[in-house]
């Protein structure tokens, strides 16, 4: 965790009628941190973001920003600004007026206002677009105006509600890089809502993965990816091989299990508390399994049969049947050594890093 907590979420619940949208959430977001809320639609991530912004009130629990409780404080009095999913660019105002919208309330004087707006325009690389009307902008331009309009208010926290979901793939990837740079430069807290795991992994300092109103895991991207806390998290991030295991035992900081086809394995708990080892699941990521090429040998080494092959350009994904494993296991190999030429039906030998096994709550 970085520095002081900027946002503290304490036991926050939100109930709509009979539906519990948020269930006892707790989280702490640091000053200057790029924090992402990741989850499928309907998991409550947007509701939580809107509560931080003041557009929704928690049913119970508190949200603190900069150490102050935000209960009852409307959005216009919070030190947060938001980039809306639809961008909400005022169509009756031009770009300059859109960005100056909030500054008008501060009565800075015309010169100061103009200089701030033009700086903001430069910052999002829209210099010269000031007189363009709000409804004459492209998707990418609207996104930049929304960003400039929020940042010009110099918030302590910038809230971003799926800001890139309306853009096409190339522009989205470019904006991911730019947003990350911008956040590093200005150093304020960003809270991003997204359902795109790659977006969250590539941009964030830390990620909170949410399912049906609960936070399943809060961790750095690498940890979330390599060491998911639950099967649900692993499933959502995608790719994890779930393995048939028996005799799973937890002791101290490690675990042991017997995997048919693999033999006895062990691994680290990495701080996870596994309450019921019998219900726990063992997994391994596809890129941690490697092919042992002809003429080589390795330890450990197991064998399997290729049942399908999917070509992805720089990598190939092999679907492999391993004796004793109920489900096929996938292996991702770069194509440098000819993984894309392995015929379906051939027998292969596989090795792995003994530390690569992950234990997850079922």
């Amino acid at each position, binding site marked *: 965790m970085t520095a002081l907590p900027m946002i503290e979420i304490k036991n926050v619940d939100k109930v709509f009628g009979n539906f519990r949208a948020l269930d006892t959430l707790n989280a702490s977001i640091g000053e200057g941190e790029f924090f992402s809320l990741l989850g499928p639609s309907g998991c409550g991530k947007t509701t939580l973001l809107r509560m931080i912004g003041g557009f929704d009130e928690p049913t119970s629990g508190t949200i603190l920003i900069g150490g102050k409780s935000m209960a009852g404080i409307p959005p*216009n009095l919070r030190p*947060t600004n938001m980039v809306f999913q639809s961008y909400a660019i*005022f*169509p*009756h105002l031009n770009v300059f007026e859109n960005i100056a*919208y909030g500054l008008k*309330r501060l009565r800075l004087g015309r010169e100061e206002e103009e200089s701030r707006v033009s700086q903001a325009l430069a910052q999002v690389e829209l210099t010269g677009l000031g007189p363009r009307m709000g*409804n004459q902008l492209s998707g990418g331009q609207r996104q930049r105006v929304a960003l400039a*309009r929020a940042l010009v208010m110099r918030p302590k926290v910038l809230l971003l509600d799926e800001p890139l979901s309306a853009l096409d793939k190339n522009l989205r990837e470019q904006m991911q890089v730019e947003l990350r740079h911008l956040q590093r430069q200005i150093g304020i807290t960003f809270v991003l809502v997204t359902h795109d795991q790659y977006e969250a992994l590539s941009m964030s300092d830390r990620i909170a993965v949410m399912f049906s109103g609960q936070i399943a895991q809060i961790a750095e991207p690498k940890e979330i990816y390599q060491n998911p806390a639950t099967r649900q998290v692993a499933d959502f991030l995608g790719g994890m091989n779930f393995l048939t295991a028996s005799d799973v035992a937890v002791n101290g900081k490690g675990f042991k299990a017997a995997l048919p086809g693999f033999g006895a394995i062990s691994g680290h708990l990495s701080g996870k508390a596994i309450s019921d080892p019998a219900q726990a699941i063992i997994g391994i990521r596809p890129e941690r399994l490697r092919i042992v090429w002809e003429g080589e040998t390795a330890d450990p080494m197991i064998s399997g049969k290729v049942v399908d092959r999917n070509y992805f350009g720089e990598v190939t994904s092999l679907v492999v049947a391993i004796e004793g494993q109920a489900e096929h296991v996938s292996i991702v190999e770069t194509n440098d050594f000819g993984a894309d030429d392995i015929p379906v039906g051939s027998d292969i030998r596989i090795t792995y890093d003994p530390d690569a096994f992950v234990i997850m709550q079922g």
Partner: protein
Amino acid sequence: MKFLPSSRRVLSAYVIIYVAILYFPVLLLPVFSFNDSATPKLPLVGFTFKWYEGLAGNEAMHGAAWNSLVVGIIAAFLSTILGICAARAMTRHRFRGKGAASGLIMAPLILPEIIIAISLLVVMLSMGLQLSLFTVILGHLLICLPYSVTVLVSGFEGFDPSMEEASLDLGESAFGTLRRVTLPMLAPSIISSILVTFTISLDEFILAFFLSGSEPTLPVYIWGQLRFAAKLPNVLALGSILIAASLVLLTAAELLRRRAERKMAIRP
């Protein structure tokens, strides 16, 4: 020109005949208002302005026109203000009982006017209220409100609710948001609502007939004139003016609505 399939041609022909029949009676009044004959019958005998000239010095008619104007303007403004509240609640808030509340506000649209008229009449007379333009305004407000709501609901639906949230988020107060975002975005719908409800009030007869007492509006005045066969050509002239006025107002409302739609549309 492409040859249409026969079923399509039959349908097109039907629609043209249907629309022609819709317009025929409405266009008939202006035609006979220029006909130089004391009774409206075929063939047309000659062109004249005399029935319109006859209206010029008619004090009673002028009084009725003034009454209609006063009632229409007040009813249009008040129903639009109330309509903004209703449309906002219907489009921007979720609450239990919204359906029932909206249904009640929209009910005058489907109730027979005579029921509304006699209920208001009985209550006003029982309360000792003198029948006047004021009582007509109260009645017209009730029946104009559903039309205002319809126009304004589509106005509210036409713009993204996060516009208002964005304004609050940028530090603007609730009132400032209303002034700087909501009203400018809603302006065409507001004007459209005023024009439409003014037209409704201008043309409304039943409520005015029951509630106007000794201060007739134009339709009530026309009703009174229908007893005199000799006055029919003048009535046709007056009716034609009313139809023309309604047409101009409604076309203006429609054009405004379309311009607003184009303005709010996002052009990529």
